């Protein structure tokens, strides 16, 4: 009877052993992803806070031309000079619309700025082993999609006052605080530091969740590689796009998570992960309709999804 009882426990011990064999290496990989991406998250948050505090939206409005095509190109490239992560683009976008900047340019800015900036580009370059190709592909794909989507949904300039929801949010928006022009240097520094901490804490929760999922998946895939085939084709691209939306990482951290999937998924699927993650993550799915209006917002998200999918399939 005792021997039979012990034998009954064998499957349980085997199961526990299998779980531990996954958890122990996944623990190390999880910490590695966090440690590796934290400097980029921190520097991105710091720079974004400096921009938020020191540069007013009126400056943006003066730089952007009136012509639709020129405006989307300039809008897409603003992030290169003034890096903000996707957490910061929506508040800035709302203020740009109020200042009269063409909607096409604002849409292009919102979609491209989180990727086309030095921090994100550097993070992608490092994450893919000092490989400039993936970095350039990501920047190029983001630029093209942002410009095309901006041109399609641009239409006529819609004054912000016509969007009731948007207006009421503007009045309560934290960005109103930026227009206190006469802050002392010490107060400004404190403001930057507090904003940096807020941005870090806004990002780090998503980073932790995605690092955990990524590390567990990677270990499971490695230990069961003969059961799982390497993913390619439509399913691979769609899976990676869905993961990117769910993870909702910032642009300086997602490259490291994407890299960990590179052995299991096609380059096109990984690129789709990198591009859609900054355009239509969970945060933007909620914020973009609130910024541009429900119909325009849905159009923007749907077009981003479509073009990212096409990009992933082409590569």
């Amino acid at each position, binding site marked *: 009877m005792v021997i039979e009882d012990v034998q009954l426990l064998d499957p349980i011990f085997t199961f526990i052993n299998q779980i531990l*064999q996954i958890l*122990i*290496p996944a*623990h*190390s*990989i*999880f*910490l*590695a*992803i*966090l*440690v*590796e991406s*934290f*400097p980029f998250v*921190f*520097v991105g948050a*710091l720079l974004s806070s400096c921009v938020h505090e020191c540069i007013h939206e009126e400056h943006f409005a003066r730089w952007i031309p009136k012509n639709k095509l020129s405006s989307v190109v300039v809008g897409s490239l603003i992030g290169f000079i003034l890096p903000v992560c996707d957490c910061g683009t929506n508040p800035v976008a709302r203020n740009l619309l109020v200042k009269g900047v063409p909607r096409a340019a604002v849409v292009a800015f919102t979609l491209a700025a989180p990727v086309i900036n030095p921090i994100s580009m550097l993070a992608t370059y*490092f*994450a*893919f*082993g*000092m490989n400039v190709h993936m970095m350039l592909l990501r920047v190029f794909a983001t630029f093209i999609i942002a410009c095309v989507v901006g041109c399609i949904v641009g239409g006529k300039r819609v004054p912000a006052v016509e969007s009731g929801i948007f207006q009421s949010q503007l009045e309560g928006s934290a960005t109103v*605080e930026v227009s*206190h022009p006469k802050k002392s240097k010490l*107060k400004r520094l*404190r*403001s930057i*530091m*507090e904003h*940096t*901490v807020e941005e*870090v*804490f*806004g990002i*780090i*929760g998503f980073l*932790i*969740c995605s690092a955990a999922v*990524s*590390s567990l998946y*990677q*270990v499971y895939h*490695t*230990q*069961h*590689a*003969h059961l799982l085939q390497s993913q390619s084709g439509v399913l691979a691209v769609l899976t990676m796009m869905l993961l990117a939306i769910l993870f909702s990482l910032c642009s300086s951290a997602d490259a*490291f998570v994407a*890299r*960990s999937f*590179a*052995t299991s998924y096609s380059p096109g699927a990984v690129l789709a992960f990198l591009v859609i993650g900054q355009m239509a993550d969970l945060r933007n799915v909620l914020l973009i309709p609130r910024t541009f209006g429900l119909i325009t917002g849905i159009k923007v998200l749907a077009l981003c999804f479509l073009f990212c999918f096409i990009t992933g399939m082409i590569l």
Partner: protein
Amino acid sequence: MQLLQLSIHRKQFVQGLLLFSLSLFFLKLYVTGNIHLLVSDTIAVLILFTILPVMVLSCAMLFWSVNRKPALPQRDHGENCEGDHTHCQDHIPASSFWGKSTVCLLLLSLLAAFSWHPKALGSEMIAKTPNISPAELDANNSFDDGSTGTLGELKPPVTTQNTESVVTKQSANEESQASFAIHYQANPLKYVGTTVALEGFVYHSPLLPPNYFILTRYFVFCCIADAYPIGITVRSSDSMDLKNDTWVQVKGMIETKQLPILDQIEPTNWFPTSPKKPVINSSSIKAIPTPTKPYMMPS
């Protein structure tokens, strides 16, 4: 004498405390050298430059979270704000669900971080291979025919007396297996018949006989999430005494063998262009401690 009323703003205090703990973890990784078990040298330098700013920021948050104000009776909070609400944290509404979840997640992560047992990646991260029948294995692979072999129709240089080490490991940072892999692919014949001394951990593949093992090290670009194993097959009568993940130094002569099965094993599939594979016929194997920098990195 005016009394001071201290109040602590919880949100800022918690944020400061968590960031300070995180910076302490990074500092601990650096001081103990365990950072090299997680990330590459480049990323380790970036972490080093991040530690101080994060510590300063967290200390500032902790300092500001303690609100020192003169004690006043029946204080109406709104009157004391003097119009500048930027730093008046009491006006900020209570933390949202996501804010509290972030704090919990970061707490759990810090718990995971400080409870981490430092250990280099081992054979548990080498991809499992598909099952192959013994008949198929024997038909295509010559494990113990004793031949040193040639590559195609070309003959190797006469180097049977050559004991010069082609690739020797001089420090823990040297890219031993990776260098060998690159050099061998460029000019295989140059290395056949020469003696090498390489270090790595033991990996017994289920597809190889007991007197063979693969001397493996991971190649890391940024962190161990992108680690890729690179290995060289070793033939030794002592192979069966060596457990998986044991770090050893192997000295021996390079020979080639008909072993197309190595294309199916992750650490040895870096030389797929010929069925003849390099194998170290070991003359000595010595156990060594795990290096402080166990991974190979781009130079």
